């Protein structure tokens, strides 16, 4: 998963380095005297949680304050209040910037241009898609030459912003580009830039995503924080495990389902299998992709982690993938079979049905290993080869788990 940062890290580590004007701030824990002094200096401040909020943002947890006692109370309250189920790292207070004008900018890689693109809008503080085309402009940026002041200025002119301010803002935009390209970012937004009556410019909120594949983001010289997240223990452990190696995929996203435990292979196949399971009431526990020809040890540890977290609660084990191009089925299945045997030896017998469908190199040897293991473990099974469509197998698995669950409930 790509690293993301919010405004506080920008203020602490990036804004000065890249000469992007930004408001003053203090971070909780902070002394009452310092808060008092800052508010005397600023007039008023805004208390915010340091959290990577989703689409709904930090609404409800952002407060404008001018009294230092209130500010102190809010800093403590906001730091301890969850936002969209996420616990903030801390809370901070930024200088309130009275705005005469607001702008929005975003730099990202654009699938239309197949290059970076720079978007600027004169309507800040809202979703870019909600802004009419007449109030925003997107231009491609040459990835080698970067965004130059002339391009930035011209874009502002098109949106009707001329004069001295145009040139000052354009310089800020170029600095934003420099930060984007120098740190290996995948996208970065400043929403909004606030311009005071006196023409001072401030970057007043920020979010960015780094490209984990870009060496610059790995060697950035920044202390990127671990934001608390709402992810489940399985997602967290798999995220760390996945990042340890690029040999084979180890991708898991929990879905909150309670029935089918899916071990899936292939980015495309895993998506359509989960889609089919969800459509047919299979209630999959997570989305997984373990393709990309993982070596035995990698696959075994992946299976071990997933089994440890979820297998005990599952009603059906589904091992399914299309016809593999590279993934050795004998290797991956031997690893899964060994992990399953170990799980059973630690946790006791498991009598849930196992549905398997696969194709690819070493298929029959892999099926032979798995069949033997399931027979040893006395688990009911059905195996399909590459001549049965994976979506039909998924449909059957969804029916199987539902029917058996229904029967179990009836018996109870």
């Amino acid at each position, binding site marked *: 998963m790509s690293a993301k940062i919010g405004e506080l890290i920008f203020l602490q580590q990036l804004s000065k380095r890249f000469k992007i004007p930004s408001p003053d701030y203090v971070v909780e824990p902070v002394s009452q005297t310092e808060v008092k002094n800052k508010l005397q200096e600023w007039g008023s401040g805004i208390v915010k949680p340091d959290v990577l909020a*989703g689409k709904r943002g930090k609404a409800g947890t952002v407060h404008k304050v001018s009294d230092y006692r209130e500010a102190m109370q809010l800093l403590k309250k906001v730091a301890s209040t969850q936002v969209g189920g996420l616990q903030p790292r801390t809370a901070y207070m930024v200088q309130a910037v009275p705005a005469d004008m607001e702008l929005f900018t975003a730099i990202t*890689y654009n*699938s*239309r241009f*197949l*290059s*970076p693109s720079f978007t600027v809008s004169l309507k800040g503080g809202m979703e870019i*898609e909600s802004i009419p085309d007449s109030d925003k402009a997107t231009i491609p940026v*040459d*990835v*080698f030459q970067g965004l130059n002041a002339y391009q930035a200025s011209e874009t502002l002119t098109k949106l009707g912003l001329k004069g001295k301010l145009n040139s000052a803002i354009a310089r800020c935009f170029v600095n934003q580009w420099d930060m984007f*390209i120098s740190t*290996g970012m*995948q996208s970065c937004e400043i929403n909004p830039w606030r311009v005071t009556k006196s023409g001072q410019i401030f970057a007043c909120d920020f979010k960015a995503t780094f490209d984990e594949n870009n*060496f610059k983001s790995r060697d950035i010289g920044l202390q990127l924080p671990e934001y608390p997240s*709402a992810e489940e223990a399985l997602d967290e452990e798999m995220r760390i495990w996945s990042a340890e190696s*690029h040999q084979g995929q180890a*991708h898991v*996203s929990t*879905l909150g389902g309670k029935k089918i435990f899916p071990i899936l*292979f*292939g*980015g*495309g*196949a895993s*998506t*359509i299998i*989960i*889609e*089919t399971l969800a459509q047919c009431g299979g209630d999959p526990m997570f*989305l997984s992709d373990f393709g990309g020809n993982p*070596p*035995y*040890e990698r696959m075994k540890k992946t299976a071990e982690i997933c089994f440890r977290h979820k297998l005990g609660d599952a009603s059906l084990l589904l091992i399914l993938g299309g*016809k*593999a*191009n*590279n993934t050795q089925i004998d290797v991956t299945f031997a690893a899964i079979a060994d992990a399953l045997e170990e799980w059973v030896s630690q946790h006791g017998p498991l009598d849930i*049905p196992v549905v398997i469908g696969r*194709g690819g*190199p070493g*298929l*029959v*040897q*892999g*099926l*032979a290993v798995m069949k033997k293991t399931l027979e040893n473990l*006395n688990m*009911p*099974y*059905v*195996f*399909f*080869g590459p001549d049965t*469509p994976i*979506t039909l*197998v998924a449909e*059957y698995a969804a029916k199987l788990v539902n*029917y*058996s669950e229904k029967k179990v409930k009836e018996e109870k």
Partner: protein
Amino acid sequence: MRAKSLSDLLKKGDRIAVSNITGREASKVSIVSQRYCKNITAGWALGKEGQTIEVPGIGAIPVFGQFNELMAAFPTTKKPNKIIVYSPPDAVYGDVKEVLEHGKESVETIFIITEHVSIEVTAKLKSLADTSGIDIMGCNTLGFINAHDRVRTGAVGGDAPDETFQKGSVCIMSNSGNMVNTIATYIKAAGMGVSYGISTGKDSLILTPVKELIPLAMKDPRTSMIILYVEPGGSYEEEAVTYLKSIKKTKPVLVYVSGQFAEGRNISLGHAGAVVEGRNSMATTKMKMFDDYFGIPVFDPERPKIFKDLLSENKRGIRVNALHDLVTAARSLTEVCGIETDFTPVTRVELKPWFINFGDFERKLPSSMILQPGIISEPYGTLVERYVKSGFGRVPSRQPMRNSSHASSNDGATPRIYGYSVMSLMRKGSFAESVLLYWLGQPLKHEFEAKLFEMGLIAALTNGPGTISSQASKLSASAGNPPNTAMIATLAAIGNVHGGNGQESAKMLIEVFGQSGLTDPYNQSKTPDLNIIVAEYVKKFKKKKALAKDAGLDYKKVPCLGHPVFNKEPVNYDPRERVIATYLEENKIYNVFLDFYQRLTRGMTVAGVTNKVHAVNVDAALTCILMGIAWPFLVNKKITVERAVDLPFLAFALGRVAGGAGEYLDHRESGTDMDMRVPVGECMYLGRIQD
């Protein structure tokens, strides 16, 4: 885009160079590709110049250190025009730049297979490629297949492209590489084959997206239908639909859009590019966009008639909700659009279970849920017979073994063999027991087995100084070599016809008894009827021998019979085999394999297969001992057949190498330097003097 047609991207006659060809995946895929279509000219990998990638039966792929060296090695007409990049992510930019610099005269397309290339590098590659006029597919493409020309790049089709891709008229374009194969397999059931299978890649930036490829497919003479597999993320399909709307006559398009389930959940799908950024790249938006373009709702397989009517009004195509509905939808489209199917379908889209065993769980299911195993198609049927249904020997599974071993371990304090402490083996066991533990992975079941094995090792020590293995040791000593060289020389001079015949004998015994139900080779009361087995074997052998003789061919003899040293004795016993047989008799131990061998020698003479009285030689006896030891492990699938077959040769080599050491010690002490040399006067030249 440089390519003006799909075949410009890959056709027969294209010459391919592969970067980082010595890598794990690149070399494996290149070998399969070379077997399939022989289109790889060469590869390059830093520091690996001079190496080759051997392709059995085809020839070697040369490896150069750098791309410019590779290009310099070929004349202009033979220089590669397609490039496959398998370089590590951080090396992709440099390698592609090298290609653009040194290959601009000949290179037309670069396929970047590498995953995890940074998005910044991807954008830079696009910029460079546009400047150079070279097309780039990827990054993170699986490759491309031209089924009519039977050529591919990358791993499309896996290790058996012919199995999946039958030539036909459907062009498959997919974000997912695996889905190219899967869809090609599905649509066979609609009687449709493939013109081109294209994996566009699914990183955030797709450098040759569908909006570029669809116009080429529209004018491709081999393509009459396009199938798109689409994921969330990107604006590629939106631009493709804009193009489709702009043209008057289109070929029908079948679309499957995946990823709808992920909407509203904070999860990432399997591919890097399947990240929704904005409403327009969501799966539901893409679904609606295609439905609007087609002018009809998503395909419903339950109402084919209604959809045929809808399709006949508007022949642009249709979207399906389940991937396997592509088959029914494709059938409807062919009928409505008057497209001829490519072949008569031989398969149907249905559940075809290979193995099923629900046990007690079956009682919980209605009859509609209980499936019956079907016929497993080839080549899988034969493999299933071999690996699954044959209840003999363990099925091996493979894994990288560079730093791991099942056989030994050492935690820094205790070296172990298959988990057994070497120190405890030293205290309680024997050398023979320990060797067999190392070779079998299990302790012996009977005490007498170690004794028998040791007798076999003693017999293998020597058969006199004239044997070629002893001669090799003496030759080495005579040349002044150290002891290890003499031992190596001894080992180097044994082979299939000297010492290795035990392997053939083991194969024969497994073939004869493998399906006989034999479980305990030491229990005479439970052995199958040897008279019948011998009679059948002799009969088959006699027939084979007669046929071979009629055809003037050599025939495969019964292994380990009629050893040259003993086969002229009036009573044909190998005295070393007699020692083993006597030990067995005295200790009331039965060995079914030795019994079989002894009956076989008599049976061959009685049946007139040979006029000699063959002896069961010591190699056969050693094999019978080892098969007796290994048999229960084979039956219980603890060891592989391959391992069991190697045991006799290993035992002979172990005994004989100790014998070779004895010859070395003697020769070094008493021989003179170069005394094994044959004097010139004793050597004969058999040719004609030429000058």
